């Protein structure tokens, strides 16, 4: 025991691989050693530098700029003379008191939650369905990925075209079976439903792929044991598949949440957030304020953008909380 201790003390090596005689005799080698250590440190920093520069230039600075923009009264003139008075929370007050705030908040919540519930439920159902290997399963599963592969612009335009009140195929179908036509994109009651349908359709493949890979990680023995115990397929799903899929489900939902909160293109192409404000979410509202109307209101637009970030952050925290509670339970 003593012997090993001694050897280990003698054989202490520093980072550069140099054998240090012993801890007590450190002083003569000090300058050399510290220089080496410094160089090692610098090398480490050189490796970190690219990612730090990247993070600062592409994440920290834009975020800081957006915060700065939202606390100032930025007009087009500010770009010329560089003056933008600091107005504290005026932009936030203006945004929150705006008549668009409540509808936009409700629309954002409805759009996000309904999208996620349906995307997840349908994605999971399809994943379980395709997990039962049958002829053509792989081909069919690949076909379900199509929405994911299409550019959003294409998907949204085609949905807008299909849901057109006058010439859309959906209304033609409804009329063929004797129903009255629905003003999918142009009535306040249906506009949100229409963009939701398109967004759910686009989000299903993502859920399908991740949940399918999650299913592959559940050991087959568990299912065998369940089968031996005489569990019905319904029981197998609720007692085995669903609980064991929980970690994968959580990450799928979180990613879906972040993705759905910021959805802009689908809504903008299909309804422009309209009619009126009936499908305006925070993302649409921010764009409208900044670039949509005739007068660019950059600072309120930045304020709305920041509220959206805060919203995503709050959802993130709620997710982590629930996650911890589930782990403890």
């Amino acid at each position: 025991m003593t012997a090993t201790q001694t050897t280990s003390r003698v054989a202490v090596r520093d980072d550069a691989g140099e054998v240090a005689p012993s801890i007590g005799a450190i002083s003569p080698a000090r300058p050399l050693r510290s220089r080496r250590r410094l160089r090692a440190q610098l090398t480490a920093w050189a490796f970190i530098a690219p990612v730090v520069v990247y993070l600062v230039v592409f994440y920290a600075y834009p975020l800081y700029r957006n915060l700065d923009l939202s606390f100032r009264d930025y007009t087009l003139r500010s770009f010329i003379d560089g003056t933008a008075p600091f107005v504290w929370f005026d932009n936030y007050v203006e945004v929150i008191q705006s008549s668009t705030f409540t509808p936009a908040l409700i629309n954002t919540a409805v759009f996000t939650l309904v999208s996620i519930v349906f995307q997840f439920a349908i994605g999971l159902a399809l994943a379980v369905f395709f997990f039962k290997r049958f002829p053509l399963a792989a081909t069919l599963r690949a076909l379900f990925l199509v929405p994911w592969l299409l550019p959003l612009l294409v998907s949204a335009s085609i949905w807008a075209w299909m849901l057109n009140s006058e010439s859309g195929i959906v209304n033609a179908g409804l009329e063929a079976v004797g129903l009255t036509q629905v003003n999918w994109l142009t009535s306040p009651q249906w506009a949100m439903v229409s963009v939701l349908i398109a967004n759910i359709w686009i989000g299903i493949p993502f859920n399908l792929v991740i949940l399918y890979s999650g299913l592959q990680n559940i050991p087959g023995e568990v299912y065998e044991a369940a089968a031996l115990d005489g569990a019905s397929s319904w029981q197998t799903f609720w007692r085995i598949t669903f609980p064991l899929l929980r970690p994968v489900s959580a990450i799928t939902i979180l990613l879906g949440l972040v993705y759905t909160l910021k959805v802009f293109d689908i809504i903008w192409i299909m309804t422009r957030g309209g009619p009126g404000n009936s499908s305006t979410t925070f993302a649409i509202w921010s764009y409208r304020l900044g670039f949509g109307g005739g007068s660019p209101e950059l600072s309120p637009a930045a304020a709305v953008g920041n509220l959206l970030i805060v919203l995503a952050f709050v959802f993130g925290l709620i997710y982590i909380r629930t996650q911890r509670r589930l782990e403890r339970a």
Partner: protein
Amino acid sequence: MAIQHRARVFGAAIITVGVAAAALTGCSTSGESSSASTEFTLWDPYPDRDAESTWAKAIDACAADLDITIERNAGNTGDTVKDLTTAAGNLPDVAMVDNPKVSTLADAGLLTTTDDNGFDVSNIEANILSAGEIDGKVYGVPVGANTLGLYYNPTVLEAAGVDIASVTDYASLTAALEKVVASGKKGITFSAVGTEEGSFQFLPWFWGAGADLTELDSAQAESALQLWTDWLNNGLAPNSVISNTQGTSWDEFMTGEYAFAENGSWFKSAADEAGYLSVQIPGIDGGVAPAPTGGEFITIPVQKDTSRYETSAAIVECLSSGDTGATALGYVAPTADGQAAQLAADSSLEFWIGAVGDAKPRTADNLGISYGVISEQLYTAVQNALSGAASPADALAEAQAAAADKLK
């Protein structure tokens, strides 16, 4: 430990300096471009017109005349206001700007006036020029103008027994639409989309009813919006107008099912080909409603080197005088001479030249930058009324309140 800490601080310092240096060089590279060179930049919203197009050739001809080179630059995003403001330190010599945006850029101090750049605007038609006029100062000249009219399909009208001469005011137009719909065809298509395009299309009816943009909730404004709302509710116009752009509205008209379409002079050749004709949009009690003008202004943004203005003004002169620029872009020329030349070349342009003469810029009446705010509220009110979210009166009252609040 102490050494490690010092090294870490040192490393962080190097990175900070590096980032700062990168940021600084990033700034300094812009800013130095325009010297006393003979190369002039033109921000051109028509990048799709290649070097072989008549538009590019018109620009090249001007460059050759002035013995300079003109570099066409489409900007970054195609949104001139956004691009110009973000490029504030390094503006192009000449920029083409959509006419309702001229006042916004002028207000931001980005554009020179004709006093600064010495450009003579006396022969430009006054009604077209007024979009660039704020408080008596002129910030640019139109390259040309277009406007809206009422296209009609003679076959559909004939089958329904409607004489186009009977369409003289809102009531007779509505009566004609009812006859057409009764004959099994469709009435009228237009664009009431929730963007500037929606306001553009609504304005002839709004102005034609005698309403004023400074008072969105007037009885006249309400009667104009009521007209559109009734058309929709009575099936005389399709519900799709709420999301139609002018392009999709035109596609509907081209199906041959519709009797009327409100659309722009830019579809003239397509209409000629299909045998469709056009009349000016009537006023509420007869006469002709003023339609808004469309089209870009050629502006000279502020430069550090003011000696460049002289040549820039010559470029603007070259592109706006006569009819080369306007004809190349499919506009009605902004000068009487240019219009005469266009008419001589193609007599079928007479209708649209007359329509442009009766038209009125959106930012006229010295509305200037207020127009953007008002327009946003106006198209929102149109959307709310047509979709049934609010009655025309309520929608307009809300719009007026919101606009007044923003313009305070």
